[in-house]
């Protein structure tokens, strides 16, 4: 009887212990479920072959990625050693101590000169210009555009376009052209539409879409160092940008009120739109004939310039950080050290990852690897990002509550919308004691 009890107790103990992994030669990286995570797993397999350290990339659906990651952080969980987190998380994750401070690592390993400057600025540094770094740029990403080459090069279309607008039909270089072309191809009777844009308001899609107009119009979200927003997010440039974004929505396919990366890619595959906005990370599916019947006829261009000649795109992408509560921080650092080596970065790009390594990005080999890599290369030096303060999600909610009804529901004027947004943001910053 005693033996049985002992066995039971031991078994229970083991069972309870098994909740936490204590194996040193294993690392777990957490990311969202998508192709780049699979590429990272393949890269990590090479690391295992070289060092014997097993690295597992664990994934969760995109829609739940933030929830899952922060629930784990907030409970100081050690399930993940490394995390490939969104740039907006930097403020929340660094201020609360969830991320390990990588400033020394960045300096010792010369990350600043290895990676493209914009990527270090947005994926690693917080607060802005503080010289404190929390992650290593891993997956560069920004918004670009895909378009239907066959529609653009159809002689009849080209002729009609020229007659109507007085210049040649070609991938747009300005937002004015983009809007003309969207209007030109908007033909509801033929079930063809002008343009596919982001509208989903469940998280950051609406913001990421609108930012492309805002930044290229020379507008800003606010002053990132003083947190002043009034007079900036509702400036005449910002109002003009919102007017333009609303106009684009009127040329979008029907039912475009909840669209993000999936819907925008479908606009191309299902012959719905002439042009479609999307993150570069989702373009591989568009050049694959198995997933896009129009693969051969799909072209790409960088986010066009605004009326003042400014040209910026909304940033996507992620850096990789070490989780403070990991029990394998040393091993995690070793992995990062390996990851930033030039050879590894080349391999990462070869596997399909969007490297942030300046050397690899600039190489002709990379720029010619796919039809969109050139546009990606150009864009990555002209990106801007959303607020990265810990309360960024409240700022997103306010933006969704104000901008969504304006774009999709056509409510109010752009000035009213952005004035209201400026007031909301001001109140949020005041609540957290930022700015004056």
């Amino acid at each position, binding site marked *: 009887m005693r033996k049985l009890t002992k066995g039971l107790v031991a078994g229970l103990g083991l*069972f*309870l*212990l*098994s*909740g*936490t992994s204590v194996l040193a030669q294993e690392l*777990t990286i957490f990311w*969202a*479920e*998508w*192709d780049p995570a*699979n*590429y990272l*797993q*393949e890269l990590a*397999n*090479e690391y*295992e*072959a070289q060092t014997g350290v097993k690295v*597992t990339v*664990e*994934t*969760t*659906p*995109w*829609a*739940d990625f933030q*929830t*899952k990651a922060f*629930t784990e952080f*907030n*409970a100081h*969980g050690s*399930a993940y050693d490394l995390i490939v987190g969104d740039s907006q998380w930097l403020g929340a994750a660094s201020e609360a101590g969830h991320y390990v401070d990588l400033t020394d690592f960045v300096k010792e390993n010369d990350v600043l000169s290895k990676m493209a400057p914009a990527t270090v600025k947005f994926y690693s540094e917080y607060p802005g210009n503080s010289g404190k770094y929390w992650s290593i740029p891993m997956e560069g990403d920004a918004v670009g555009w895909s378009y239907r080459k066959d529609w653009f090069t159809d002689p009849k279309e080209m002729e009609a376009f020229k007659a109507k607008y007085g210049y040649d039909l070609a991938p747009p270089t300005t937002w004015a052209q983009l809007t003309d072309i969207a209007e030109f191809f908007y033909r509801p009777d033929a079930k063809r539409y002008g343009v596919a844009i982001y509208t989903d308001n469940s998280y950051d899609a609406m913001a990421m879409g609108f930012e492309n107009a805002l930044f290229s119009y020379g507008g800003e979200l606010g002053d990132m160092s003083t947190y002043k927003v009034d007079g900036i997010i509702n400036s005449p440039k910002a109002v003009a940008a919102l007017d333009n974004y609303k106009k684009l929505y009127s040329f979008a396919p029907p039912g475009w009120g909840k669209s993000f*990366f*999936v819907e925008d*890619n*479908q606009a191309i*595959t*299902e012959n719905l739109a002439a042009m479609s906005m*999307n993150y570069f*990370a*989702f*373009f*591989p*599916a*568009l*050049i*694959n*004939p*198995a*997933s*896009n*019947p129009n693969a051969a006829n799909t072209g790409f261009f960088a986010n066009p310039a605004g009326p003042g000649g400014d040209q910026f795109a909304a940033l996507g992408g992620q850096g990789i950080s070490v989780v403070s509560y990991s029990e394998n921080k040393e091993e995690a650092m070793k992995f990062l050290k390996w990851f930033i080596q030039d050879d590894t970065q080349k391999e990462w790009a070869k596997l*399909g990852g969007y490297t942030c390594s300046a050397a690899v990005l600039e190489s002709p080999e990379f720029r010619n*690897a*796919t039809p969109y890599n050139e546009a990606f290369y150009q864009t990555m030096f002209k990106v801007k990002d959303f607020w990265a303060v810990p309360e960024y999600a409240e700022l997103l909610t306010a933006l969704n509550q104000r901008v969504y009804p304006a774009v999709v529901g056509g409510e109010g004027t752009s000035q009213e919308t952005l004035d209201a947004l400026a007031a909301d943001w001001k109140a949020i910053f005041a609540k957290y004691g930022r700015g004056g």
Partner: protein
Amino acid sequence: MGTVTSAQQKLGNRLANVMIVVALIVFLAPIYWIGSTAFKPRNLATTVPPTILFTPEVSPFVKLFTKRVQLKPNEKVDYDNAPWWEKIVIDGGERISRSGKGEVQLSGYPSRFLNSLIVAITSTFLAVAMGTITAYGFSRFKVAGEEDWLFFILSTRMLPPVVVAIPMFLMYRAVGLNDTHIGLIILYTAFNVSFAVWLMKGFIDEIPREYEEAALVDGYTRMEAFWKIVLPEAATGIAATAVFCFITAWNEYAFALIMTNRKAQTAPPFIPSQVGSGLPDWTVIASGTALFLLPVAIFTFLLRNHLLRGMSFGAIRK
């Protein structure tokens, strides 16, 4: 109107049959669409009009069970030496991801499916068992503050899971229950037991006490009367409760997502994750959904006679 002639009855029956057929079509059309998409080639998945006739493929299932990455332009794969199931994947513009040692990497689906089975079956059994005895206790004996206790039991299901999730997660982590099967089983049992108590009380209340009292007179103990008289009479209720509890536990999403990592993950969060790569492969989502529907459907079908027998003895009311 009172006396219904047989001709009228026949017409009524026929009308009812027609309506049932209509209901079947409405309720099953989306399911049929899911089921057929599970066997379609990818390019036929979202066609309008829907493709009815096609050569069924198993490729969605091969994709469902493996980890894949898209083929890059000019990427070389050893097509000729690939086994048939890998050829299907390559034909679909993807290749199967392999570990450093060259082993085929499985997707999360098979292990998650197994976890779902373990968790759902065990928690359903526990919830129904606890629900039945507790309902019997409330139905047959005097409990001080009975209505308040019953309302308390009901109220445990009212809080939106979103709110309970954070404290629950902290609690689980403190006692080491996160990412374990036991943890999910306890959670789902707690979640379902309130439903089971209420539903079973509804059913047991309908069973006349006279049945048990007669048995007690015949020399049964109370416990024997419960086992041999009440339980069989409550079979319909037990079957219905079990079906509902199983469905709830089988499909639970929010807690499954937050409370588990690698060891005890269940399948529901896996299926939506398939939209991640820019263009969802609806055939894979459909095959994952269809396969996941199968255990519940079989479970329900096996219990159908109990479900339909109803409370056959009829209610004798006071």
